[in-house]
């Protein structure tokens, strides 16, 4: 492996690991804020107990998510210095804004929320969890805006061979960024709600704290349902943008090697495992569906990998302009198929709720435990598709990944840090998972934390 391959592997490893925690943290912060609001509004003790229980799980997620996020900001410079030099005029701005606008807010008020309970009024304490929720959601916006610029560069002009910013507004309101951001927020809602329903299902199966965990599901299910609908709509919007902005990614995601008009959607395809086998061996298809989804017309044309390759060669010169098709195809399938399972699960949950059977359906509870794993697979698959699908470009149409890494950082250095990060992440990820499961199994505190007035700080959330 070359230093470039290892740097790519390192980016994939650290980013995937980081993103296991990001949507969980954003989603749980929102979930906790909703519960705390319900407690504030109704005064019902059951919500205070939810805040305490899910809040502690949220803090574990935040702890790992925050420290692994520091790497994200550093590794552009460490492993991708040529990329940083090339895009710095545009790419650095959202990162700096993310820190100034979102990270300060998130971190300051998270510390505040943990330690100020009972020290400030319940209203101030409630505001602080909302500021954590908003801060964490805002941080996602800026990084998505930065990533979307790599998928669909806007608001720049080329000066001396480098993109120079012409409109920060264009970068921030990039249609790719808006759709991707909504998609990510929906993913956060799906992640947190499925995890909470899974934990609740585990306890309900054992008839443990039935009331408290039924309440937990009732708060989570609407979030799950909204997440399903919004993530579908935003995903659909992203797919239509993809057809225009990154048709090669769409073609690879559908294993569409040759242009079709009308285009069928592939259900299950096999092919030779090379970067671009040029054709599928077997392909189970539904006619017209891809045309409908991508072009909104019954007979719309969708370009194939082979035709796009020719187009790009004509435009950019000789080279390979396709990603590893099988990786993009299968990550897309995993994302979509597991998403369908989530949608069905949400529907079933909703029906059971209406019939008053959430607490008694053993099958729903058992499946709920397994469904808690799916958002992590879906989130990972989504990013693999997005990032691998952009290859060979690091910035679509402007810079190739192979020209972007740090020229004088050696293979040994990248290998060493890759091994180092992998070991650290395995260790802290393992510990965090163990603690998370242990806390989750304990269940909700039987008694609500004392309301606490001024001068009686409640340290039930603190270390």
């Amino acid at each position, binding site marked *: 492996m070359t230093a470039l391959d290892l740097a790519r592997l390192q980016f994939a490893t650290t980013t995937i690991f980081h993103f296991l925690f990001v949507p969980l943290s954003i989603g749980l912060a929102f979930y906790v804020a909703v519960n705390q609001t319900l407690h504030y509004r109704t005064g019902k003790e059951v919500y205070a107990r939810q805040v305490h229980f899910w809040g502690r799980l949220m803090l574990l997620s935040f702890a790992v998510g925050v420290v692994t996020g520091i790497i994200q900001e550093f590794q552009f410079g460490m492993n991708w210095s040529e990329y*940083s030099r090339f895009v710095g005029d545009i790419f650095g701005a959202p990162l700096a804004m993310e820190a100034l606008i979102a990270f300060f807010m998130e971190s300051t008020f998270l*510390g505040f929320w943990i330690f100020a309970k009972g020290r400030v009024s319940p209203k101030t304490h409630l505001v602080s969890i909302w500021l954590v929720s908003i801060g964490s959601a805002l941080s996602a916006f800026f990084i998505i805006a930065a990533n979307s610029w790599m998928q669909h560069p806007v608001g720049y002009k080329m000066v001396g061979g480098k993109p120079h910013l012409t409109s920060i507004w264009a970068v921030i309101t990039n249609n790719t960024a808006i759709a991707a951001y909504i998609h990510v927020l929906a993913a956060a809602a799906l992640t947190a709600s499925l995890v909470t329903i899974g934990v609740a299902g585990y306890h309900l199966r054992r008839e443990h704290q039935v009331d408290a965990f039924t309440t937990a599901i009732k708060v989570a299910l609407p979030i799950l349902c909204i997440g399903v609908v919004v993530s579908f709509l935003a995903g659909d919007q992203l797919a239509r943008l993809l057809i225009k902005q990154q048709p090669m990614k769409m073609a690879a995601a559908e294993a569409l090697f040759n242009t079709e008009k009308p285009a069928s959607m592939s259900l299950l395809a096999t092919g030779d495992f090379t970067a671009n086998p040029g054709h599928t061996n077997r392909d189970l298809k539904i006619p017209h569906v891809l045309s409908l989804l991508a072009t909104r017309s019954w007979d719309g044309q969708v370009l194939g990998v082979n035709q796009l390759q020719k187009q790009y060669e004509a435009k950019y010169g000789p080279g390979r302009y396709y990603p590893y098709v099988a990786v993009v195809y299968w990550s897309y399938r995993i994302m979509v198929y597991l998403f369908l399972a989530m949608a069905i699960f949400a529907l079933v949950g909703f029906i059971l709720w209406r019939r008053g059977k959430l607490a008694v359906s053993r099958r729903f509870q058992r499946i709920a435990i397994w469904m808690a794993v799916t958002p992590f697979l879906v989130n990972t698959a989504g990013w693999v598709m997005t990032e691998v699908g952009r290859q060979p470009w690091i910035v679509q149409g402007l810079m190739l990944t192979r020209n972007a890494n740090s020229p004088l950082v050696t293979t040994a250095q990248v290998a060493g840090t890759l091994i180092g990060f992998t070991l650290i992440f395995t260790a*802290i990820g393992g510990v965090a998972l163990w603690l998370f499961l242990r806390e989750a199994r304990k269940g909700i505190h039987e008694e609500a934390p004392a309301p606490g007035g001024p001068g009686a700080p409640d340290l039930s959330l603190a270390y």
Partner: protein
Amino acid sequence: MHSVDYSFLQALWFILICILWIGYFVLEGFDFGVGMLLRHLGHNDADRRAIIHAIGPMWDGNEVWLLTAGGATFAAFPLWYASMFSGFYIALFLVLFALIIRGVAFEFWGKDDRPRWRATWEWAIVIGSFLASLLFGVAWANIVHGVPINAQQNFTGNLFTLLNPYALLGGVTLVLLFISHGAIYLNMKTGGDLPERARGVAKWASPAAAVVGIAFLVWTVIDMNDRTGASVAVAILGAIAAVLLATAAVSELGRRPGVAFGISTAAIAMLFVTLFVDLFPNVMPSTTSSLYNLTIANTSSSSKTLAIMAVVAVVMVPIVLAYTAWSYWVFRKRVSPEDFDRTTKNPLDLVGSGGKSAGTGAGPDPGSAPAG
């Protein structure tokens, strides 16, 4: 006209980034120091919990100053960011390692009460705080002194290039300075026996930091004289920093804990002001050839990006400072080991025991003094 604006914006962003680093070092400086002293000053679980709680609400927000400095460098001086981060590759990996184990340790520590579990994460906090302090000192000394950089703005040395005597002195300076800063902070923010023990540390750490720090400053001025010629400004600023370091070493910790912390803060800030003024208008000089020096002019973003980001900073920084200050104000009271020294393990029981528990304590606290 246009070029005047441009060089003004470049200088402005250099100053803003320096302010972010100074903010980072004075704030995270005390929580690094507290982290290094965790096991030394904390003799039992209650002590250590009080020490952790003394920085608990702040340390994560303090760390954001680093992220902001990094992000601002990327936005304003992308070529500096690229050269520095790829050049200090292994050193930065070690910084990340330190910050990661330290960050999760705060959260993991209280999740189990087995002695080995506690000890593991306490050591993670101690080592993480030490390693990060040392490496930031080494890194900044190298940035000021210069490192081998070629015509393509790439660092051509390795980890051992960075471990030169001057840089190591910078590293030791920062470690001692933060230990002293952390001890002075704990003297101000804790109750029970802890302030006295913290003063015991400050008694040796502050003079040691002053001696080493002044030696580092003298070396810095001499080094600058060799490289670019004498600078009166740097010599004067270095002298002020030296006076502040010496004052911090002899300041009255018992009666005026807040003032002592203020002096310590000013000493750290002036040390870095000296380094930054020395550095300007370079951002990372090349020891290979002064032709290859990285400067604010040859590493910056376009004037448009600098101007936009300046607006963002002007709007956001006061807001951030306001709520940060408010949060520090809410947590101004001392934290005592007595608040945690109960046979009950469940913190909920603490709350139930009435107003005299944990942290702020409604009751009068004889050693209590408001935070600086």
